[in-house]
């Protein structure tokens, strides 16, 4: 599979995750979200950018429980709930947000 952005093609796996995370650009995240029928707003980007930073530091995408706790610490308690994250990413916060962030599917993923 592949995704096309600005006339360039990017390889993805069968679930739509980017094959080479070094190729990622914000436009790719937006294009993936549009393809799923839900454009991204700044609240989505907060989470996506957080995931990219987490991956850069620890070389893994965090499990959803860890993500929830960390988001609460970084962005405020009202955002560190699974309700908030599932509203933003109904297909599973870690799973869906990681896809838009160009990261591999999280270990033991939800």
């Amino acid at each position, binding site marked *: 599979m592949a995704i096309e952005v600005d006339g360039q093609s990017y390889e993805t796996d069968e679930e739509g995750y980017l094959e080479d995370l070094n190729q990622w650009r914000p436009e790719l995240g937006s294009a993936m979200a549009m393809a799923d029928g839900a454009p991204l707003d700044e609240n989505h980007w907060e989470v996506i950018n957080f995931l990219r930073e987490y991956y850069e530091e*620890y*070389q*893994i995408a*965090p499990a959803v429980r860890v993500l929830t706790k960390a988001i609460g610490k970084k962005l405020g308690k009202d955002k560190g709930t699974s309700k908030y994250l599932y509203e933003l990413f109904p297909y599973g916060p870690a799973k869906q947000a990681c896809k838009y962030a160009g990261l591999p599917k999280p*270990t033991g993923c939800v």
Partner: protein
Amino acid sequence: MEDGDQIIKKFMYMNRKAPYGTIYAWESLEVVLIAAAFDQDISLVFADDGVYQLMDGQNTEEVGMKNFSKTYSALGDYDIKKIYIEQESLEERGLSLGDLQDLKYEDEDDDWAEKDSIILISRAELAKVIDEQDVVFSF
């Protein structure tokens, strides 16, 4: 030990191999990260060549593998707070704790104070801790 109606078991993950020659180290780490979701009493052991997994300042560029040594620092986020390092294994390799990464967790019951996860333990003491486990996985 019981927590409500859920029984908590003691799970130990034993790491004895060098990090990059085989897939064991990374597989073990992935299994641990998944198992952490089940709220069990988890501990990790690094012994024999397994102590190399925690070496500070790893660089994997030349071997073309992902440097997953950074991932060990995430263990605290996963509520893994007991990481045993066998003292004799370090000494036999001319290493000391100062050569390893500094791993910490935040103690929820103590105003999120940062505490050391690493516990230096002698071979004899480790044998006793292994004996107390319900389940031991060896990698």
